[in-house]
């Protein structure tokens, strides 16, 4: 039986979660204090994912940068491909929170959306 200790990043509590594995199969998850921790631990040992947050250039606004995020988590290994697309994107004001800025970013199946209202 293999044991892996993780720090859950689901929220700032940072619970220490232990995953027991047997030949690549998850046998048990302990130490989490909510469901997010269980989901995180199972994903982290099989296919780790992260939400990516960054900014894109915005035109026609009082400020030059619009903050954005991936609408869902993307595989960790795709983060820099996602960043590359984000860095080559320009948005136009007005923008509302949740507006899709990039569809299906870097073929991850996930959209990049605005996280700030800009009139």
């Amino acid at each position, binding site marked *: 039986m293999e044991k892996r200790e993780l720090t859950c990043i689901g*929220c700032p509590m940072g619970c220490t979660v232990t995953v027991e594995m047997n030949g690549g199969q998850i046998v048990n998850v302990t130490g989490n204090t909510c469901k997010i921790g269980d989901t995180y631990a199972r994903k982290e040992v099989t296919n780790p994912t992260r939400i990516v947050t960054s*900014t894109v250039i915005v035109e026609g606004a009082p400020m030059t940068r619009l903050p954005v*995020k991936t609408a869902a988590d993307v595989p960790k290994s795709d983060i820099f491909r996602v960043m590359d697309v984000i860095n080559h994107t320009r948005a136009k004001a007005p923008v509302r929170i949740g507006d899709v800025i990039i569809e299906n970013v870097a073929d991850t199946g996930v959209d990049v959306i605005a996280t700030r209202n800009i009139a």
Partner: protein
Amino acid sequence: MKDYEIVIVGGGPAGLAAALSAKEAGCDSVVILERDSVLGGILNQCIHNGFGLHTFKEELTGPEYAARYIDRVLEAGIDYKTDTMVMDIAPDKTVTAMNRTDGMFTIHAKAVVLAMGCRERPRGALNIPGYRPAGIYSAGTAQRLVNIEGFMPGREVVILGSGDIGLIMARRMTFEGAHVQCVAELMPYSGGLKRNIVQCLNDYDIPLLLSHTVVDIDGKDRVRGVTIAEVDEKNKPIPGTEVCYPCDTLLLSTGLIPENELSREAGVEMHPVTGGPTVNESFETSLEGVFACGNVLHVHDLVDYVSEEAVRAGAHAAAYCLGNVRASRKEDTITVRATGGARYTVPSTVQCDRLGDLLTIRFRVGAVYKDAYVSVYLGDERVTHLKKRVIAPGEMEQVILKKEQLTAHEGLKEITVTIENE
């Protein structure tokens, strides 16, 4: 200038939540005075996610979290003035402020809510030898440059201090193509949240050098490198352990200090540990009718707790204006004492009859404790004995007591929060 019953100083998360709460508690005469040109405070530059899990049960970025409150403030029709600097708060709650359209003006408030937030500890406070070249930034300044202004402060980066903003910026700079060589931390533990060490440093193989500090900065016009050395138990650099890191940028994330110039001028009693005002159960300072919440009171890790405290401060400010509170009485005051590892508590005093159903006491510890207990004593009786796997200075702790527990203890004078090994 129109007079208001409640003046809220600062339009960040604390000020916004306090204003909403004051309005909901029945006070229609509320104004927020904000120094920046927009509401939202520092959340606007915190574009990373992880905000609001407690409050909204979903994971938001800083600007999204701020927008939820800004939208509600606008809907509620609460007045606010941006680009407005508060110059003075007099003990009689006359607030003097100025901006470009109104000039200098005064508001004769019945209650004031202090919500000014905090500032970063600057290089000048760290006694780092070496020149003063360009390329040395506080982590929050770098965060503003990258996320709001759209400038990269540098390409080869060393970070001193493992506060959360430094950790967040390690990842952010990496995303934008910079190379972060290491994060050096003077203490033997990190000052930031565990989750940030995992997702900002470990994810990108950025080493965290505990018990290390910067002993020299090289470069005359621009940073060319920094020398990092290991330190002993007394935080003194150990000769022979120096390593030079060639770099063009040094970010400092060495602590946050509540911004209390206005509070001090007003004559508010300050807490020697938090650097913020001492407050009672109603978040009221030593000046009757002056309340404090958010990072101006004590520096938080979670904005959710800021909002929660601000809601209470705002509601109490409204109750005070409406005449629904009796004045505090010295003979009924219970002192909350932090000892045995706990460094401070918020609140510092409690008056039972002004309490809601629950009393939340928040505190921080001065060192890392493993498998230790958070204990609370009412007088000599231990009422809380909570086992924790880890208690660390970087993470704020809390205990919650029921009002009945306090009232059942007749003649209670002191509540003690302490860390025990067994």
